[in-house]
């Protein structure tokens, strides 16, 4: 029998109570929020539990919401996949600015190692307990975190690409 969303919801709520919340189906994936300090626990439960069996960490990535409340300015989004029942889930963890920190899951899934390094590299999110948390795609000497929204994509002094002529300012583009 395929794994139903309601079963996932009930099992997780029974197990973790208020640490998991905001369950919703977005397109084809069940999405929910996990408190950042329980992520390692929740993911190892999802992986090892005999009904859950989410054996594969598809991807993880960071996000930045500069306009949100201070506690929710950063997030890490995990996609997990149960290959036996063919169910995907998306887990979101919100982290607080200015020093976002979360537990590593690289001890649960080896594939998280480089992906967490990438997330650190681009968002400055610290993964506690990561064995080798250093920059991966950018050079080591870099001091900023380029995927944060305040980091400009191009040199602000450029005059050959003025979007104001099309009715756009930096606020509404």
């Amino acid at each position: 029998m395929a794994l139903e969303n309601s079963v996932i919801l009930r099992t997780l709520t029974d197990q973790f109570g208020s640490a998991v919340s905001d369950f919703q189906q977005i397109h084809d994936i069940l999405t929910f929020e996990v408190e950042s300090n329980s992520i390692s626990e929740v993911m190892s439960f999802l992986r090892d539990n005999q009904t859950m069996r989410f054996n594969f960490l598809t991807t993880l990535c960071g996000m930045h919401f500069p306009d949100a409340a201070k506690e929710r300015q950063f997030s890490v989004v995990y996609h997990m996949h149960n290959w036996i029942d063919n169910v995907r889930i998306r887990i979101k963890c919100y982290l607080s600015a200015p020093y976002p920190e979360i537990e590593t899951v690289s001890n649960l899934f080896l594939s998280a190692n480089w992906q967490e390094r990438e997330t650190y590299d681009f968002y400055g999110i610290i993964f506690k307990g990561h064995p080798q948390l250093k920059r991966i795609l950018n050079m080591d000497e870099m001091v900023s975190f380029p995927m944060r929204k305040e980091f400009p994509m191009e040199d602000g002094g450029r005059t050959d690409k003025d979007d104001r002529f099309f009715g756009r300012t930096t606020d509404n583009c």
Partner: protein
Amino acid sequence: MSDLLLPPELRYAGIIEARKNEDGSELSILNLGPTHPATHGIFQNILLMDGERIIDGEGTVGYIHRAFEKIAENRPFYQITPLTDRMNYCSAPINNMGWWMTMEKALGIEVPKRAQYLRVIVMELARIADHIICNSVLGVDTGALTGFLYVFQYREKIYEIYEEICGARLTTNMGRLGGFERDWSPLAFEKLNTLLEEFPPIWREFENLLTRNRIFMDRTINVGPISAEKAISYGFTGPNLRAAGVDYDVRVMQPYSSYEDFEFEIPVGKSGDTYDRFCVRNEEVWQSLSIIKQALAKLPEGPYHADVPDYYLPPKDEVYHNMEALIYHFKIVMGEVPVPVTEVYHPVEGGNGELGFYLVTDGSRTAYRLHFRRPCFIYYQAFNEMVRGQMLSDAIATLSSLNVIAGELDA
């Protein structure tokens, strides 16, 4: 501070010193890459060697990082396709189609059957082109140049088909939201049919050249193996995972673009070594050929794109002579199209594994966040573990059979 945070040459200096004092042996550091002819891409491996044997290694990636995810946050949606081309440039159409399907999922657009079948054909052609390169280059790296030159001309023929479809060859920027920019010309089908006739005997001969070749087998069997458990934990997907014996394929698990209409088999290997990866890719080429034949035989008539005037560029003829068409053309080109606030994850089976697009929109003309799940980047981190204890020449064969594409690795 953890030892691993140090640059590898400093870390290894300590190990070399310790071993020298211990038994007088002389370890050395070898710098493989970033621009080494055998790595087939720009990435560096700093290897700690005991003679010819690899004791440890550390990879440095990012030499051709082009900030695609950042650019994607600043570009209208249709301008993201050229970025996807440049990830896995050996099979660009799969990336293009994957991106369009992600957008279509976010917007809820139903693509007509003909366009879906045409997409399947072009994606399978891309898979063949990808596997041709990977397998023939594996031959080159183990000393057999002939096969490479022999099959490489068929990649050229595949590129000629792309050219007939969209005008470009390597970085194709193919398709549009909802289908294709134009219907395929009769010449494209003609070229496709010629390829389907001429290529199989050539591929058979290529297989004969290598599969039971004693030298090739000695060079690849038990070289760079990985167990199924390790492969899953390391996030392997695609042919590299299937070589380890796990039959995971996105085309079957989560069929997209009408893959459920076709009969095909998923070849799996056993030991996850270089030879198995070679054999799995070989067989996948046959399966892809069979899918293309089935799709051609069943190809329905009908429109080649969805009827979505909000997103699909109007015909040029109308743009030049008709006010409304001109307005729509301008709006679409400037990215002023209605986009709902949503988030989608869409995976496709790329040449190297599950290529995923995680798109978050906030209703503006650009993506709020677009994350590419790049299979190469995820599985390449297993490389050092796979080659530890092996010979240097085996590391080259392993790297080649993993089919690490620098563009996809670095994004």
